[in-house]
């Protein structure tokens, strides 16, 4: 036996042992795939590891890819990369199924059928690019450069987005949008403290965390980073534990791991937050010093014209006493009392708000209410509070050179914004984007670039969006797969998968330190695909002039190098490396802000690509002053910015008259009046009262935005928590199920005013009564053999509602009824 | 019934009889083999022995009974033949 095994090892060289275990394995050589036998005959199977950044979701984890004879066979977390420190999420592991997916687009395609007909014919790169370039040039010559729009669904803080922005600006169009857009999510922070940045939370030093629907372990910006923090915390605080309390209408992964779960009626988070504020204020549990020093609009105040304005305090005291709040939220008064006291008595204590509380028509106001709790607790610029990371010392891209065509184009109003195209607060709303395209308001869109993402699948207004896509003369999609959306494209320029391309990721939102990750090819492109970034450079060159001048790089790799070189010069931080394993924070603290010296940039570059990234955990000391960029230089309970901009809108209606203000407010779907509009307050969600149940959706780690639906492994373990594979299910509380005569595993109809879907019911008490929770991700009508026709898409029964302040879709605002499917 | 046929039949009987023995012996060998394996793998030896102790004798007795019957009948038929000769 032994000898045989040796022989076998020889056969497979470096990659020892298809031998399972025991002494019988030798016979199992026959079980090794042909390919490997051949490789083995060729010589030793050489095993190598390459570091890169995972592109499955925006979380930007560092991954280590195992290659045997240059073919990736396994992926694990990069133990050195500070964001995930060797951790991974399920979908990261199925990345190889993206790379080797049988449904990949292998060459440029031209649509021959009608949009959505999915009939294609191949096209040579030169032909395709020339075609597009000509069109773009024509547009430009006719002063229509602004009619070129770019929709970037990557959701990623990568160089790519800046790259695109650069291109669009140089070309002369204001219409570059990210969807979903992080900028939108940060609107509340913009309104309250004037900075458009997602805060990071100092979990490690806090005693108590109150999370308003923020599912940071599952749906957050970087779940694995938070998982790491979370468990690191549990290690640190064996004795005195940090207490996690999760407020959510469904028991999310975060809620399961929290110390307490408080169910709440969807869309009423803001009210609860203010209810908590009520008690903090009443019982003097808030940070009086901070509030008096660094906040604006807490007490009632008088403006220059001598008008008295309502203060946060009196607003809260007046409207949000526990009985009232518990009537709105369904949370018992004593519970509110409890959490408020725990919050006030366990400082430093943190308050988080996201997903559940944000994805609603009143999302922005809820977030403001929740965030203002942090102000009451004085959680700024102190240990165990929240903070804002610095920007990494990356080189800015060269200043965009705008010729007069570009200037003219850029001066045009962007079409991606809400009801009035100059509403500055919001970055992008797919809803108004669509409406504007359909109504040619203020101008038609003639070219649309699509990069990654799948708006037709994600958006709540997919019908209109489809129409809009049909309307646009030229739709170009950079995509590796045929998705619902790219089916509407006229030309598809296949992109590399992230394992084949260069990119650079810096500062994932809410990750608590400065970091840069290098995404690099681990394998030669399998097919005739190209990096979209390079395509843009090429297009720029074809257009020529200032456009090519603004992207003066041979290719994307060079561009990244150019950016990274500045880090090297700055000498800040460190390339992640063996030394930083283990208890990294302390290590760097005592080691000062710089680790390691590099003789040359080439060495630096070699190292950073070898290890996968750079980081700098040391925060620059910031006075509270530079946290708040508001006009008052303080934290503004009363958002003067919001006031200013609403006033602008009012003026655009003509004069500042009562009815104009009414008009504006009603168009913004704001029910509050007077000063309340600019204060954190509770806005009731407009729901169909005749529908008895709430519909809430959530995203699973196995398939965060439906982008993993074409990976069989993820399809199979989609519902690993309730042993559901390849299909969608609806969670229903036993009481509710009883009312509707539904038992576990029954099939039910979920019906809203916009449509109905049939799916399996899972009856268990992890969702509050009268709420039906459905995971988002499946129900594709395209996107390859593994995605198509499995499960249902809850968004298809959702009402097309949006938070009109920041333009985000309201995923929790639909009410439904259910019935047993027969 | 000619004698030729008789001979063939007698042969056939003998063959089947031997086959029976081979079968039984085969089984016994197999069981012994199994015991050796179980000893080698330190399986519960009590069980193995128990089974084999039951199985082996059973097969042997069966075989013996058949043999007994076989020859018992044979012997008798032969003297019958002698009778018929004279």
């Amino acid at each position, binding site marked *: 036996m032994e000898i045989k095994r040796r022989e076998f090892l020889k056969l497979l060289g470096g990659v020892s042992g298809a031998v399972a275990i025991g002494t019988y394995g030798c016979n199992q050589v026959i079980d090794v795939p042909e390919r490997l036998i051949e490789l083995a005959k060729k010589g030793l199977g050489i095993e190598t590891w390459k570091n890169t950044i995972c592109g499955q979701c925006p979380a930007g984890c560092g991954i280590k890819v195992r290659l045997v004879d240059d073919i990736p066979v396994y992926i694990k977390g990069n133990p050195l990369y500070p964001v995930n420190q060797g951790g991974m999420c399920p979908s990261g592991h199925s990345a190889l199924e993206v790379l080797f997916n049988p449904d990949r687009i292998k060459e440029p395609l031209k649509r021959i059928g009608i949009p959505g007909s999915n009939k294609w014919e191949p096209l040579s790169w030169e032909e395709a690019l020339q075609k597009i370039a000509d069109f773009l040039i024509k547009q430009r010559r006719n002063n229509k450069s602004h009619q070129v729009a770019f929709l970037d669904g990557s959701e990623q803080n990568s160089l790519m987005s800046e790259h695109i922005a650069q291109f669009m600006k140089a070309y002369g169009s204001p219409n570059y949008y990210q969807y979903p857009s992080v900028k939108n999510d940060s609107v509340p922070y913009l309104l309250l403290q004037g900075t458009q940045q997602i805060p990071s939370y100092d979990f490690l030093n806090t005693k108590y965390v109150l999370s308003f629907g923020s599912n940071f372990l599952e749906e957050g910006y970087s779940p694995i980073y938070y998982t790491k923090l979370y468990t690191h915390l549990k290690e640190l605080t064996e004795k005195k534990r940090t207490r996690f309390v999760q407020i959510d209408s469904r028991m999310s992964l975060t809620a399961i791991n929290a110390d307490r779960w408080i169910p709440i009626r969807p869309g009423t988070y803001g009210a609860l937050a203010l209810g908590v504020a009520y008690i903090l204020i009443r019982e003097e549990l808030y940070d009086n010093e901070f509030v008096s020093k660094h906040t604006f609009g807490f007490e009632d105040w008088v403006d220059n014209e001598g008008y008295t304005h309502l203060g946060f305090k009196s607003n809260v005291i007046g409207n949000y006493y526990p009985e009232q709040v518990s009537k709105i939220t369904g949370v018992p008064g004593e519970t509110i009392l409890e959490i408020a006291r725990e919050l006030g008595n366990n400082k430093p204590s943190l308050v988080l708000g996201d997903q559940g509380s944000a994805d609603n028509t009143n999302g922005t106001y809820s977030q403001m209410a929740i965030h203002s709790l942090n102000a009451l607790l004085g959680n700024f610029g102190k240990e165990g509070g929240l903070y804002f990371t610095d920007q990494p010392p990356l080189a800015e891209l060269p200043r965009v050179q705008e010729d007069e065509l570009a200037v003219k184009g850029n001066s045009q109003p962007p079409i991606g914004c809400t009801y009035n195209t100059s509403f500055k607060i919001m970055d992008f709303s797919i809803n108004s984007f669509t409406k504007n395209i359909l109504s040619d308001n203020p101008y038609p869109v003639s070219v649309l670039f699509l990069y990654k993402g799948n708006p037709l699948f994600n958006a709540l207004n997919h019908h209109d969006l489809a129409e809009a896509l049909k309307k646009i003369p030229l739709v170009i999609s950079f995509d590796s797969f045929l998705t619902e959306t790219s089916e509407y494209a006229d030309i598809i320029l296949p992109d590399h998968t992230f394992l084949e391309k260069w990119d650079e990721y810096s500062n994932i939102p809410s990750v608590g330190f400065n970091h840069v990750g290098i995404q690099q090819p681990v394998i030669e492109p399998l097919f005739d695909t190209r990096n979209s970034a390079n395509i843009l450079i090429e297009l720029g060159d074809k257009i020529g002039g200032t456009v090519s001048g603004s992207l003066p790089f041979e290719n994307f790799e060079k561009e990244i190098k150019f950016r990274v070189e500045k880090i090297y010069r700055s000498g800040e931080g460190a390339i992640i490396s063996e030394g930083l394993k283990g208890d990294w924070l302390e290590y760097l603290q005592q080691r000062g802000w710089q680790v390691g010296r590099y003789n040359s940039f080439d060495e630096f570059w070699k190292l950073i690509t070898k290890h996968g990234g750079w980081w700098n955990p040391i925060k620059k000391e910031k006075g509270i002053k530079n946290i708040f960029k508001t006009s008052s230089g303080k934290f503004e309970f009363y958002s003067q910015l919001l006031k200013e901009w609403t006033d602008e809108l009012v003026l655009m209606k003509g004069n500042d008259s009562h009815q104009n203000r009414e008009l504006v407010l009603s168009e913004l779907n704001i029910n509050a009046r007077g000063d309340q509009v600019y204060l954190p307050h509770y806005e009731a969600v407009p729901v169909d009262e005749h529908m008895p149940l709430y519909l809430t959706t959530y995203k699973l780690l196995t398939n965060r935005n439906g982008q993993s639906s074409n990976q069989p492994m993820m399809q199979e373990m989609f519902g690993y928590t309730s042993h559901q594979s390849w299909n969608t299910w609806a969670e229903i509380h036993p009481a509710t199920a009883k009312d509707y005569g539904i038992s576990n595993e029954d099939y039910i109809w979920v019906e809203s005013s916009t449509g109905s879907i049939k799916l399996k019911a899972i009856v268990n008490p992890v969702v509050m009564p009268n709420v039906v929770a459905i995971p988002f991700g499946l129900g594709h009508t395209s996107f390859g053999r593994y995605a198509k026709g499995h499960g249902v898409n809850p968004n298809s029964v959702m009402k097309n509602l949006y938070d009109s302040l920041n333009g985000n879709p309201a995923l929790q605002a639909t009410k439904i009824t259910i019935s047993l499917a027969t | 019934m000619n004698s030729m046929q008789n001979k063939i039949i007698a042969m*056939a009987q003998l063959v089947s009889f031997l086959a029976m023995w081979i079968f039984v012996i085969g*089984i016994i060998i197999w069981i012994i083999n199994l015991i050796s394996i179980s000893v080698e793998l330190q399986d519960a030896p009590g069980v193995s022995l128990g*089974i084999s102790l039951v*199985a082996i004798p*059973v097969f042997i007795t*069966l075989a013996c009974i058949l043999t007994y019957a076989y020859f*018992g*009948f044979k012997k*008798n*038929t032969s003297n019958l033949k002698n009778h018929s000769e004279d």
Partner: protein
Amino acid sequence: MPKKIQYENELDAPLFRPIYETGKGFYITVGILMLIILWALIMYITQIWFGLGVTGMNQTITWGFYIINFVFFIGISHAGTLISAILRLSRAEWRRPITRMAEVITAIVLAIGGLHPILDLGRPDRVLNIFTSGRLQSPLLWDVTSITAYFTASTVYLYLPMIPDIAKLRDKGGKLTWFYSFLSWGWQGTEHQKKVLNRAISILMIMVIPIAISVHTVISYIFSMTLQPGWHSTIFGPYFVVGAIFSGIAVLLILMIVSRKVFHLEDYLKKIHFQYLSTLLLIMALLWFYFTFSEFLTGIFGSEPHEMEIIHYKFTGPYALFFWGMLLLNFIIPVIILSIKRFKTITGILIASIAVVIGMWLERLNIVVPSLANPRMELPIGIYIPSLVEWSLFLGGIAVFILGFVLFSKFFPLISIWEIEEGREEGIKEVEERVHSYLPGKETGSK
């Protein structure tokens, strides 16, 4: 047909008739059965081709029809040999027309049952591994050994008592003379041969009883040796044996009634035989209930959570219908029919027996599936719905059994002729002496 074979003048002519006269009925039955078997064969080939995926089993419920039927068929096999052996031992004179049939059933059903585990294998091509690298500590191997032993024993036990009848057939001549003379081992019916034969039989019947019992005990071990709740029970050995004999007698009764009708054996299988046998059935029914009762009582009384889970599942779960059906068919119906004189007619007995056979099959189902459907780990409870393939193979098994019986009846007398004769000649005298010997008074010189 050269010359018509003379048997009409025989005393036991009705026993020869089915052998020498072939009606249309015979060919039709055989034809139909052949078709069914062919179908089953095709189904099995598909299973080999595509794998066990074509069945209704899944990761939690990994055993289904095949194992159920395995236990069921082996159970039936207990009819024959055991009963005939016991009757022979107790020298019950009414056994004479019954024994042969009983033994036939055993032989055929064992062959079928024994093959079922192979149907259940994921890799039948590797079945020989149990010879090269078998492990005696696995209850499955205990089965292999004990079933082979039982099979050989019962075939021998069927064969030896048949020799005199075979000789009879040989002497009648006809096309198959060579065949019969090959099997008859030159039987001449001399005193010496009779002595030899009787001795052989008497050794066999003593030996067969323990084997038969052991076989079904061992089969129960397959289940009770695991830690599964609902299986891990010491009572299982006897429980299975009783169940086996129970179903065995039922099948025997059915066949007796049928062949009595078909082959006009009213003269041989008299009402009295059915009376006696059905009484035995009744006793078994009660015994079976006793075991079932104590099995569940211990479970419920101890109320160990996992046990309870499964008992609850049996009582109320998706298979509850089968469970209560089992009680009805195995206990209530037979007891009512067999204990009330008025119902205890041939038809009544037939109904009761059929009920029992179905009931016993349900019992096997209730043992195998629910325990597997409720794993100890908190996994979603699986459901098992047998596929077409499984049903076909079940049907095929039954078809093979009937075919075997029909063919046997074509070549050999279903009732032991020589034993009947023996009964006429010596039986009566012998019984008389025996009765005398039981009675008070001085020993009459009984040999």
